[in-house]
């Protein structure tokens, strides 16, 4: 049992820290902190991604042969924790963390050669076609159909809650290729060019006033058969593999600690000497200590070659609850300042003076947008079902 870093690990940490000190500019930090939605805009994240790309550090978890840095799990943890400490922008996970591992694991050599370098460079910006108006928690009942037509599939239907579809030039999607006895067996995994004729994107505004998600309509969209990943009917297993990455690659506590520190600073300004707020900030910090140790236990298992398994569901559950708890205390600390709502976006590029101080500006919108945390990536109830089976045999 040892939490301390080895000399080599400390050297690595210092290298990461120095790089971040040189490259994470105050403008980037400000833009990230004034983003109330879950994902930052690509105009913030892509320039940062290009800096990381030049260093070879975009995809910490990818194998070296595909452009990953070849780090040990501890090095990945050190990198992520230093990024959290420096408040570096969070890259969109859709390319690097989600579709990337699926292409690496199940894609054809041609797909790997074409897509992986473009994910790393940021040349391709991805969105996810999973949920449908009629298929949320019961994702396997999805009905957007891909029918074979020679060298192509013809896609008809609609996807929803599609984060950044309005920015993306690519979508990975689960589509129905057959109606079988078991609905999971008729699902296939596709890579779709968002500029294809027949695709329309309808913006959906969140209760926080952000345009982050969309509904995407497919009207006889032709997708080359070469864009099917793996084999027809195997999409469900690839999708589940991907969801384990979506539910947290096991490193979230340090980002939560950075958000809590921000919330604490704002609370000190707006609710100084408030015992109730102070008590709740302490309890959340204690929850983060525990989550961080849980993540380190997972990491230690990974280092010794064991599978994280159901712990990703446990981490997703608690991470989303802690995220929401931080937004609640931050909002309540504002007191009457919580009334003001700035409708213009982005908040870091307003061309008028806002009604409240900058620390307060994203707080209420972030609280509202963050209600999504216990819904996306599998609702808390879905996670509890997974855990009931995996941990308790129920």
């Amino acid at each position, binding site marked *: 049992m040892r939490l301390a870093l080895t000399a080599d690990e400390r050297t690595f940490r210092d290298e990461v820290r120095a790089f971040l000190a040189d490259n994470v500019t105050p403008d980037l930090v400000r833009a990230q902190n004034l983003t109330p939605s879950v994902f930052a805009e690509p105009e913030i994240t892509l320039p940062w991604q290009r800096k990381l790309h030049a260093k070879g550090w975009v995809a910490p978890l990818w194998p070296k042969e595909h452009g990953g840095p070849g780090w040990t799990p501890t090095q990945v943890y050190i990198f992520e924790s230093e990024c959290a400490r420096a408040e570096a922008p969070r890259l969109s996970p859709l390319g690097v963390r989600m579709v990337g591992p699926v292409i690496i694991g199940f894609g054809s050599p041609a797909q790997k050669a074409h897509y992986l370098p473009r994910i790393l460079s940021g040349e391709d910006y991805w969105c996810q076609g999973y949920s449908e108006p009629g298929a949320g928690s019961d994702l396997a009942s999805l009905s957007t159909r891909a029918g074979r037509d020679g060298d192509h599939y013809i896609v008809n239907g609609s996807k929803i809650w599609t984060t950044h579809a309005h920015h993306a030039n690519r979508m990975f999607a689960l589509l129905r290729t057959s109606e079988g006895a078991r609905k999971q067996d008729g699902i296939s995994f596709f890579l779709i060019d968002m500029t294809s004729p027949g695709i329309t994107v309808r913006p959906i505004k969140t209760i926080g006033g952000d345009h982050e998600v969309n509904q995407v309509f497919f009207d006889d969209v032709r997708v080359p058969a070469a864009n099917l990943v793996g084999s027809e009917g195997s999409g469900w297993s690839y999708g589940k593999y991907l969801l384990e990455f979506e539910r947290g690659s096991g490193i979230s506590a340090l980002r939560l600690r950075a958000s809590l520190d921000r919330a604490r600073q704002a609370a000190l300004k707006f609710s100084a000497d408030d015992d109730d707020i102070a008590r709740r900030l302490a309890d959340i910090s*204690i929850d983060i200590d*525990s*989550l*961080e140790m849980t993540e*380190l236990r997972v990491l*230690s298992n990974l*280092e010794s070659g064991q599978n994280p398994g159901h712990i990703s569901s446990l981490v997703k559950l608690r991470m989303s609850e802690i995220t929401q708890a931080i937004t609640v205390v931050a909002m309540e600390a504002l007191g009457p300042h919580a009334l003001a709502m700035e409708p213009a976006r982005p908040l870091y590029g307003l061309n008028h003076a806002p009604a409240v101080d900058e620390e307060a500006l994203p707080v209420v919108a972030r609280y509202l947008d963050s209600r999504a945390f216990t819904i996306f990536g599998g609702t808390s109830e879905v996670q509890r079902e997974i855990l009931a089976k995996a941990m*308790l045999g129920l």
Partner: protein
Amino acid sequence: MNLTWTDEQNALRSSAERFLAERYIAAMRAAPGSAWEALAQLGWLGLPISSAYGGADGSLLDVTLLTEAMGRQRVTEPYVSAVVLTAGLIEACGSEAQKTALLPGIVEGSCRIAFAHEEGVDPLLGYLGVTASPGHRLSGRKLVVLDAATATHGFLVTANAGRGAGVFHVAPSAAGLQIETYPSVDGRSAANLILDNTPAERLGDVRDRAEDIVRAIDCAVAAQCADMVGAMHAALDATVAYAKVRQQFGRPIGANQVIKHRLVEMAIRGEEARSSALLAAIRCSDGSDAATRSRAVSSAKVKVAKAARAVTEDAVHIHGAMGVTEELDVGGYLQRSIAFEAVLGTVKQHRARYASLASVSVS
């Protein structure tokens, strides 16, 4: 970074679990101290004590392997008070002669000393109302002296010794000492001590022992956190097993989502408590500075206490009316969690100490 137990530690854990599951019977639970000789024979009493005095040079992490197993079986032996608290303080503060006189007896099982520190104010703050005269005579009142009834060789009493805190050994028959023993909620006992010009022997020299006292409390809380992790996992296991067999409305109650999700929440709390307790034990074992150690311990006390109460309350609830009776074990785990919350700093006191110490991340 490495969070795996060694083969030796895993062996200690499984032998402790096996021994207590097979040999620790209800009659022993009802008579604290009755299993002490057996624990001595297993070498558990010397585990954290230096080999110079017959111990095994173990760390607090090693100790938590035993206390977790003890929590699982609701062991009522005074292990934390007599081995972690008072033996730890003797080793930290005592002179060579005092260590030689007391520690081998503790290791062999012939000497148990109780810890008298709390006075009704926050025990973590260092305030001491009990005073020591220059001639080492103590006056004042101590509360919540755990396991006083099973102590064979009196008490270690903390006192304000003018310039800083001192730790004093008081014999059970000392003049002016009154002991008011009372049963505790978890089937053990505690006592109030009234000291009136009571003669005592100071441990070691006149140095301020405040940090040694805090360190001993931190180690004891970390050991108790592991105990509660064992207790809540036992309560969880019993409840999950019951939910699978108890039939109502023609199906097991665990098939109802409302029960199932409650059980999952208990299991998650159990994992969270395990993480926090582990952090505390590591920080008590790895030479961390006092602030880092105390913050980890207070973090664990708050997290584990909240988890233990929630898990054991739910365990009682899901067992239905039977859970509220002495005929089942689950109520005993709830009682144990109440005792844990009450001693060596309440949840509120630990939260306040946590908030007062600067934020540092685990790694």
